[in-house]
């Protein structure tokens, strides 16, 4: 029998993502990923001053504010061929890297852990055994029996009050939940601790960005921070030491907790290392420039095909034609006019809404391709491209993660190919987070050293020509390759397109009918109970989806979320 399952949060909140699957004999046989919100937000930018575009683009999204701000100024700088002072590059890099760390921690502990951790089961755990287990995994100072007991008591009160709050939606007791009570309690303890830890990263962003939650210091041509010893608003050694202090705290948690929790929990879900592989092509862009021209980077970029690391084609600079010429978007299966795959500089967004048509148009998200191929973006792509490029940190942390996975599961034969999976994406995010921590230390030291040489430049003034110019700015964002494409004429924006990471991953079928990464990853997923499609959520959540880039409205009219229909 075939069952159609629709998971559709749009009935509750405007916009967002809808997933449809057909299930045959307990496995997904067809999948559709549909963005349910018209996204024409870039049109607001047409006619505006390119120097101010960033203050609008940082409002695209409530999660990735800094991400869209920095990518926007990079696009305009690329159009102008404008160099950026080294201090400004480093300050931006520190902000975006701190943001990435915060984002990865929150994704694992606060957004997706409840897919794997049975919170209610933590009430049955033995706190002493939990502490013993935790101490065998790491030297984190908040793993003792008293801490575990206190967390359990707090959870007991919370659950006993009848309001499960953050845990109310969990599929407790679902047959796909496999962790012993002690591991569940450990995860809940770290869930609560991670709330305070992620805040350290926010503080770094606020100190350098001037204001929170929307940063104020970005400018086309650099940053507006001034460096010196005097006035309280300037960036001085006292503030830099404060930043350093937060970096050290993040380092301790990520390396002793996040990076061991993921493989330790993953060891109980090894079947998920064989489920959820996507399109097997991976794209990422280089980031953390350490020169003024954008030709040297801390994080490598490139494209890998068919899961073959040897196929790596690198993307080397901010101006690399290999990236610039390879991107196109198709709207054949999206609710826009036209069927051809178009380059973002000539991209069109004229809406043409039909109903949800399985074989026709079914999404507001377009289908991006790289030289005609579908590509997955995000931490898994970053890790694979990093390892293929010979990046030391990625290689070291990938090996370390595999070692913990093998040791906790007692299975020494887990192949590296297991990373092309649902659990592999979570592992990759933790690995990337470790690399981000090391990068953050490095960028901080470079900034301090550069200021020490007497260089206090932070800004090069842009000058706009009358004729038409075009630029692309990109960023290796927490969810993957983000690019902003701008056309400027006479100092005003003529066209602006953002190709966001979740567009790459959540896009519908393309001009050739190829399915996108979400759709590919759902194929053959098991579904034990169609009414509680936990397995579908696990795989989609492993990408860290972020679709609407916009809407958050409070809605008191809650409606049905999961629909199941026998076909």
């Amino acid at each position, binding site marked *: 029998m075939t069952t159609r399952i629709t998971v559709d949060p749009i009935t509750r909140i405007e916009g967002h993502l809808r997933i449809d699957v057909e299930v045959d004999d307990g496995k997904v046989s067809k999948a559709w990923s549909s963005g349910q919100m018209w996204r024409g937000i870039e049109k607001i930018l047409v006619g505006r001053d390119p120097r101010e575009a960033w203050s609008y683009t940082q*409002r695209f999204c409530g999660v990735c504010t800094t991400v869209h701000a920095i990518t926007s100024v990079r696009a305009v700088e690329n159009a102008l061929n404008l160099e950026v002072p080294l201090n400004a590059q480093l300050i931006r890099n520190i902000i975006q890297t701190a943001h990435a760390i915060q984002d990865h921690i929150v994704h694992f502990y606060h957004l997706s852990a409840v897919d794997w951790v049975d919170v209610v089961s933590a009430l049955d755990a033995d706190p002493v055994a939990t502490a013993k287990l935790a101490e065998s995994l790491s030297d984190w100072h908040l793993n003792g029996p008293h801490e575990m007991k206190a967390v359990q008591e707090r959870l007991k009160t919370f659950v006993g009050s009848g309001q499960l709050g953050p845990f109310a939606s969990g599929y407790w007791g679902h047959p796909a939940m496999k962790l012993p009570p002690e591991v569940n309690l450990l995860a809940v303890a770290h869930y609560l601790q991670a709330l305070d830890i992620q805040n350290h990263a926010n503080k770094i962003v606020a100190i350098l960005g001037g204001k929170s939650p929307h940063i104020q210091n970005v400018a086309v041509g650099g940053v507006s921070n001034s460096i010196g010893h005097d006035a309280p608003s300037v960036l001085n050694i006292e503030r830099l030491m404060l930043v350093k202090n937060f970096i050290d705290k993040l380092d301790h948690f990520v390396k002793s907790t996040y990076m061991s929790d993921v493989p330790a929990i993953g060891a109980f879900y090894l079947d998920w290392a064989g489920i959820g592989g996507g399109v097997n092509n991976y794209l990422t862009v280089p980031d953390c420039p350490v020169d003024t021209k954008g030709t040297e980077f801390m994080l490598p970029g490139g494209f890998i095909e068919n899961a073959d690391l040897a196929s790596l084609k690198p993307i080397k600079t901010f101006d690399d034609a290999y990236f610039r010429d390879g991107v196109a978007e198709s709207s054949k299966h999206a609710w826009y006019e036209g069927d051809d795959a178009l380059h973002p500089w000539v991209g069109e967004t004229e809406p043409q809404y039909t109903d949800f048509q399985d074989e026709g148009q079914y999404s507001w998200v377009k289908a991006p391709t790289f030289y005609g191929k579908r590509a997955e973006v995000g931490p898994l792509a970053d890790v694979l491209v990093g390892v293929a490029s010979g990046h030391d940190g990625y290689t070291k942390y990938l090996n370390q993660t595999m070692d913990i996975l093998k040791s906790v599961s007692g299975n020494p034969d887990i192949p590296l190919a297991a990373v092309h999976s649902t659990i592999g994406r979570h592992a990759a995010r933790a690995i990337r987070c470790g690399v981000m921590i090391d990068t953050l230390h490095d960028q901080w030291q470079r900034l301090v050293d550069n200021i020490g040489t007497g260089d206090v430049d932070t800004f090069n003034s842009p000058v706009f020509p009358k004729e038409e110019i075009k630029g692309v700015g990109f960023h290796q964002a927490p969810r993957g390759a983000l690019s902003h494409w701008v056309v400027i004429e006479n100092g005003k924006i003529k066209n602006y397109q953002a190709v966001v990471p979740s567009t790459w991953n959540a896009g519908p079928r393309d001009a050739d009918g190829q399915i996108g990464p979400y759709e590919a990853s759902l194929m053959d997923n098991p579904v034990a109970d169609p009414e509680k499609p936990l397995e579908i959520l696990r795989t989609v959540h492993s990408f860290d*989806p972020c679709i609407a880039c916009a809407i*958050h*409205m409070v809605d008191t009219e809650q409606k049905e979320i999961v629909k199941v229909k026998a076909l």
Partner: protein
Amino acid sequence: MASKNILIIGMGNVLMQDEGVGVRAVEELENRYIIPQGVTVIDGGTTGMGLYDPIRNCDQLIVADAINTGDAYGTLVRIANDDIPAFFQTKLSNHQLGLSDLLALLTLKAEVPRHVAIIGMVPHSLENKLGLTNEAAAGLDAMVKRLVDELADLGVQLEERSEQLIGHWRREAELEAQGLCA
């Protein structure tokens, strides 16, 4: 005592018309009234976790936001304390880790503000533009007044500025209406 540590957050997306009415309301509040010590006003946009620290450190929280209750467009509503819905259901997007989730997390950590009130307006249109619809624009003054009243109930009397200021988003929306951009 009553005036200690009050946080007012405007929530919403200013690029989506009435969705941003909360941000526009707190902008007006700051530009029409003198904000006394002990009261902090934040433009929260559509962020969630970025507000963790300020919310954790306040005693009383007032939120201005677009709220879809099913009532007529432009209707003002107030939801307070136990009536604020906890939104932890099937999550497919990060944006659903919003304000209500944050409040629930802080409850679990026993760090939730003593008093929470949402002053909301039912939005009419969510097009991609800055300017509010006529319905929302008509209700904006009343929404600002509700915020003033809410503060008064907490023991804080706001003093009007001798001369009103014009905030960034209001100015940009006016420029848009004059056809000077887009």
